[in-house]
């Protein structure tokens, strides 16, 4: 307080301290000096700028040779893209009913979507070469609950011809849809078979993958993975100390003429299981095997027209004990169930129209508790229709309708989704 008062006093005294005329002259002199110095600095700076410009011109000529393969220089910054996936959802069920809507006999997980506006995620995708030996990728979806490392893995680029190792946390090469990112799916949600066997997100595991592409007259990819086994529907974090899941897959592909391609192959994943995802208050411990047969046919005569037919058949078999966590009584559980989806997408110009049919328990519906066969009601099924409009490669609007009878209680869940997907940043790839 005292200091402020003193300062005020000082300022008040200043105008009286000197004669005005002297002061003005001195001030003008000082201003002139200052402006002279400024002009000099400006001149100097301009010179420097021009020199820099010359330098950058020669730099430009040199950098004309920069490769356009991965976009502009990715030394200082990796390639980054952000994908925002948001949708409006409407169902004839209220949010509480949706949450309770599991697939009895398969999974106790309900539907996480809520009536009204939903944000799936804002997903960061980062990638760049590490050195001449590795490429590095990370997928970090940020949801309202926080950020998550969905994928973080390296891929080798310098192993002998045909061999490649992927390691870290990644989407397993099992099946077809499993390794695709949800925003690249042809529908807003995963097929029922995936929801029932692996969970909506699919098999994303920490581990290591080896793939081999032999030099044959047609495309064949062979792969094997050793995985931690965290998937909470098939396996489970606590099933066994250490990695307890292994997978193998093969894919073959032919072109039929210039415009048609087929891709098909089997996959299998086996592992130890301990989880509470079969039914509420029940813990399962035992062994799991999941098989998959995939088939894709694509016809693409031009950029404006294409048709894709895709199907996967999944068969899951589990053997072990189902313990009631409340009463601590245990039953043996042996179950072998299957599921299939078939989907078609027709593209004309910027518009894509899709239809999908899902069915569980197609050929196998064994669910034996201590030897007694269980009946959960009608076989789950779902029919889906969608229309998509892609304003550019980077924005997509999709309207989807699901007639969902996976609740097995004879009640239909009528779902309508209006989904918007936008991508900014590094150019994403167009995989087959």
């Amino acid at each position, binding site marked *: 307080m005292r200091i402020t008062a003193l300062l005020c006093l000082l300022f008040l005294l200043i105008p009286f301290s000197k004669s005005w005329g002297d002061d003005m002259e001195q001030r003008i002199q000082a201003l002139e000096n200052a402006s002279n110095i400024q002009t000099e600095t400006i001149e100097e700076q301009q010179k420097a700028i021009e020199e820099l410009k010359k330098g950058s011109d020669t730099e430009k000529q040199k950098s004309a040779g920069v490769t356009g393969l991965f976009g502009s220089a990715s030394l200082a910054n990796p390639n980054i893209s952000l994908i925002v996936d948001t949708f409006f959802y409407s169902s004839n069920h209220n949010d509480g009913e949706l949450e309770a809507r599991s697939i009895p006999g398969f999974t106790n997980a309900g539907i996480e979507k809520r009536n009204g506006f939903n944000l799936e995620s804002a997903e960061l995708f980062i990638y760049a070469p590490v050195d001449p030996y590795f490429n590095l990728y990370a997928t970090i979806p940020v949801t309202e609950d926080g950020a998550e490392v969905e994928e973080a893995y390296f891929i080798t680029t*310098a192993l002998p011809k045909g061999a490649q190792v992927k390691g870290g946390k990644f989407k397993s090469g099992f099946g077809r849809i499993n390794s695709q990112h949800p925003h690249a799916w042809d529908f807003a949600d995963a097929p029922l078979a995936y929801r029932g066997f692996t969970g909506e997100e699919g098999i994303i595991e920490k581990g290591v993958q080896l793939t081999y592409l032999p*030099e044959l007259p047609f495309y064949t990819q062979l792969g094997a993975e050793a995985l931690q086994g965290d998937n909470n529907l098939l396996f489970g974090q606590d099933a066994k100390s250490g990695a307890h899941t292994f997978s193998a897959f093969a894919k073959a592909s032919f072109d039929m003429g210039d415009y048609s391609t087929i891709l098909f192959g089997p996959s299998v994943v086996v592992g130890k299981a301990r989880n509470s995802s079969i039914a509420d208050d029940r813990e399962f411990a035992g062994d799991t095997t999941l098989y998959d047969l995939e088939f894709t046919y694509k016809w693409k005569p031009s950029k404006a027209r294409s048709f894709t037919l895709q199907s996967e058949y999944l068969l899951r078999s589990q053997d072990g004990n189902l313990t009631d966590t409340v009463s601590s009584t245990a039953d043996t559980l042996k179950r072998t169930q299957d599921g299939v989806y078939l989907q078609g997408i027709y593209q004309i110009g910027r518009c894509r129209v899709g239809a999908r049919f899902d069915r569980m328990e197609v050929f196998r519906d064994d669910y034996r508790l201590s030897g007694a066969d269980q009946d959960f009601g009608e076989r789950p099924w779902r029919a889906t229709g969608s229309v998509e409009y892609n304003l550019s490669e980077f924005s997509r609007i999709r309207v989807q309708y699901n007639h969902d009878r996976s609740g097995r209680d004879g009640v239909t869940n009528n779902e309508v989704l209006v989904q918007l997907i936008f991508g900014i940043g590094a150019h994403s790839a167009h995989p087959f």
Partner: protein
Amino acid sequence: MKKIAMVFVLSLYATSALAKVNVVATLPFIGSLAKEIGGDRIDITVLIKSNQDPHFVEAKPSMILAVRKADILIYNGLDLEIGYLPVLIESSKNPAIQPGKAGNLDCSRYVAPIERLPSADRSMGDVHPLGNPHYIYSPKNIFRVAEGITEVLSAVDSVNAVFYMESFAAFKERFNKKQAEWGKGQLKEKKFIAYHNMFSYLSSEFGFQIKGYIEAKPGIPPSAGHIEGLIEAMKRERPDAIIITPDAGRKETEFLTQKTGVKTIILPRDVGSTPAAKDWFSLMDEILSLLQ
């Protein structure tokens, strides 16, 4: 024992000398240039069909397999293949053609790109910040690309280096002859409307003008308003023709021709688009004679 070993080693050497270099080219004109230089010493696989728009190609498994077998991968660069080539290169599991290796030949390394847009963003459409990638129609740049292909072929397959040099000498002779021939054309006074911004190299080297584009922005189809504005501009400017490639813009140009009376010229997009465009030289012959 020693003799057998010697024969074995010699025969290995012989087969490696006889084995052709496996070249994979993304676009037909690149394949054609490689053929000019490589002749019968190389095997060529071209990934993209001449009527395909290279912006919208998907990485098919058969392409991955082709790149897997490649000794040299030759591509256009300048982001033209950004949608599928990075996937192909990584999935091929072929160390020889990875970026930075001798077998990875980005032809744009030898090109002086025009229309660079260092501060571009996607509100401007499908733009290419590193420069216009359609240097296929630029003789000046194509000559340098052919030289680059010769360098890389000679380095990877040094046994046949002399052959490649000789092929390039022949190419040079043919090129000079053609350049003189093309220079006689009367394109200087001409004005055109184009569908997509892909003829900038051609117009700057042959002196004609492109007065407007049917696409509102590169890669973005035109709106009705844009077309109307274009009709007004065409009535004012009286361009000689609308130039398009067979894969895009037919409908719009038919409408414009009907409204303005300006004719449409369909140019071959790449080598093999028309029966006459057998190689890069005949492609240029056809384009330049169609524009006359």
